[in-house]
């Protein structure tokens, strides 16, 4: 072996790797960025030894449902990734075909492996409950663009998402299913009506009818309209039928989507999710979700064994998104993605999304993450930091980052201000977001790039004018939430700033 090779031995932890049937105290050897072996390992002279007596070691956790990008996303996506024990996550619906280019331009350089489960709506998820249920906001479905994107970026795409809610009608689910078939992706459907919406016909059950083997349904234990239980509290037959066909059920805890009552009744009838995911986003990281580990602790409290919990965030999660060639197990040769955690005993309150809580006598706490062999010490406070989730427009000051923009970026902002002055917009109310206008603003933004600045440079220039922390929202939505007079004045103010010395 080359002298440059770096060997790390994770010594004496309790390894749980359901993919290989390992559940015992063992060593794990890592060379550079790959797993070498899970066995009793003799110390090598130059190896870094990490003593893990009393700790657990598992394949790096995979969270198939987070919101790292877009209107629900975080300023610091790794805060809910490697800093919480998660080595791979999937953005669940943030971008659509109209914003996947923005997503790709922005979401580079993360330590955590990020994949996309784009939304059927061109703009992706809007995060406004009144809009999500309106079929008209789905706009056009440009098949050609989808096919071309999938051809070029096959590896990024892991599923296609739609919401089985509101007045979409089963036609929309079928349409999304059809596109998923064209793209050869699993369909990933949200069930459970959004707050305060009461449609006549609940689409949740249509979702179970439409889903085929390998398709996924998320928010299995939600307590909104359209639960998996009938009036008598029995699991709906349509749910059982889907399960028999091989449809995969995902937890998707979220801010609205987990009810202890539904979970306990379902679990008692052996209705159990195949994957455990968090649905972490700006609006639920403080409470009730907090972290994937907290969601895993909830599943322990529900009755799953530790091994069953780990299976659902490792090999099951990897299989559900066809990622088992690079995630979900500690097989020799796999990327060295490892999560080290402990199980603490005590009294721990775990809340659902409906102000009900249960007391657990154990909680799962991640400690160290290895991502491709690189060590990260877990920091659960990082996700909770206000700067990570509180998207606040800097109305009373120009963000510091705006002072570091290049002259090309400032010239772009000048063109953008002039072009935006030719149109007009108002945000209106949450009930009446003008999606068409947001698309127009996005188009204006793109037309101003003019080949002078890259998409990434242009996006960052706009964010840096308005936010102190780099949230990555779809640009049309970002602009429409600004008051027009303020937006134009700020853009012009930044254009006038003296350039920084090179």
């Amino acid at each position, binding site marked *: 072996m080359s002298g440059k090779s770096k060997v790390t031995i994770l010594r004496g932890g309790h390894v749980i790797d359901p993919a290989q049937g390992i559940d015992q105290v063992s060593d794990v050897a890592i060379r550079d960025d790959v797993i070498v072996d899970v066995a009793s390992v003799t110390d090598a002279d130059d190896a870094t030894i990490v003593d893990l007596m009393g700790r657990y070691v598992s394949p790096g956790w995979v969270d198939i449902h987070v919101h790292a990008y877009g209107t629900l996303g975080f300023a610091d996506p790794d805060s809910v990734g490697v800093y919480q024990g998660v080595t791979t996550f999937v953005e669940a619906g943030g971008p659509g075909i109209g914003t996947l280019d923005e997503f790709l331009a922005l979401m580079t350089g993360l330590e955590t492996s990020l994949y996309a489960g784009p939304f059927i709506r061109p703009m992706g998820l809007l995060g*406004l409950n009144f809009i999500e249920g309106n079929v008209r906001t789905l706009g056009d479905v440009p098949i050609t663009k989808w096919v071309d994107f999938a051809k070029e970026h096959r590896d990024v795409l892991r599923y296609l998402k739609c919401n089985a809610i509101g007045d979409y009608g089963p036609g929309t689910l079928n349409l999304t299913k059809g596109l998923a078939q064209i793209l050869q992706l699993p369909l990933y459907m949200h069930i459970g009506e959004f*707050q*305060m919406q009461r449609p006549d016909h609940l689409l949740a059950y249509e979702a179970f009818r439409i889903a085929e083997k390998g398709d996924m349904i998320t928010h299995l234990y939600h307590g909104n309209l359209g639960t998996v239980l009938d009036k008598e509290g029995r699991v709906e037959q349509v749910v059982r039928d889907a399960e028999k066909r091989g449809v995969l059920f995902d937890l998707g805890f979220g*801010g609205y989507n987990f009810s202890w009552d539904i979970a306990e009744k379902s679990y008692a009838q052996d209705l159990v999710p195949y994957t455990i995911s968090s649905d972490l986003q*700006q*609006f*639920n990281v*403080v*409470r009730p979700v907090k972290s994937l580990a907290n969601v895993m602790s909830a599943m322990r409290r529900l009755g799953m064994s530790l091994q069953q919990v780990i299976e659902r965030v490792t090999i099951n999660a990897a299989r559900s998104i066809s990622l088992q060639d690079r995630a979900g197990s500690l097989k020799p040769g796999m990327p060295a993605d490892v999560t080290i955690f402990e199980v603490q005993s005590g009294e721990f309150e775990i809340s659902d999304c409906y102000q009900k809580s249960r007391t657990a006598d154990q909680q799962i706490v991640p400690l160290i993450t290895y991502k491709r062999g690189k060590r990260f010490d877990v920091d659960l406070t990082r996700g909770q930091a206000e700067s990570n*989730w*509180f*998207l*606040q*427009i800097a109305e009373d000051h120009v963000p510091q980052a705006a002072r570091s923009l290049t002259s090309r970026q400032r010239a772009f902002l000048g063109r953008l201000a002039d072009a935006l002055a030719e149109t007009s917009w108002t*945000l*209106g*109310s*949450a*009930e*009446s*977001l003008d999606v068409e206008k947001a698309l127009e603003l996005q188009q204006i933004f793109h037309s101003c790039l003019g080949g002078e600045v890259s998409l990434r440079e242009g996006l960052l220039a706009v964010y840096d004018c308005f936010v102190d922390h780099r949230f990555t929202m779809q640009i049309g939505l970002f602009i429409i*939430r600004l008051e027009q007079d303020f937006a134009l004045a700020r853009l012009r103010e930044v254009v006038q700033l003296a350039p920084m010395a090179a």
Partner: protein
Amino acid sequence: MEQMVATNNADADWTVLEGPTPTGKFPARGRMGDETIVVFRTKHGYRGTSKSCPHMLATMLMAELAADETMVRCPLHVFTFRLSDGKGVNCPGFRVDVYEVKETDDRLLARPANAPTAR
């Protein structure tokens, strides 16, 4: 915030709040005629808001002060509103009504600080 309020007749539109007293606990529920509001005591003075968060109608009695006590935050999903004008900060398109509240003769008086139907 003051310029948003019609103040031709400075004291005419103040209403005595039934319920909270200056020595009581805050946030507190207060009634002004048919209307119920929630009163916060901040380091900048008293301020009132609509009784519930417009998102999922959680009571604002649960809300916490934020941003150096210039905002209130509903604990359910961290929807945050400016106490100056009621605008949703991280939840565009949502807003709460806000009220000026003052203490006079050991009583609290309130009046709307923004037009309730504005926008």
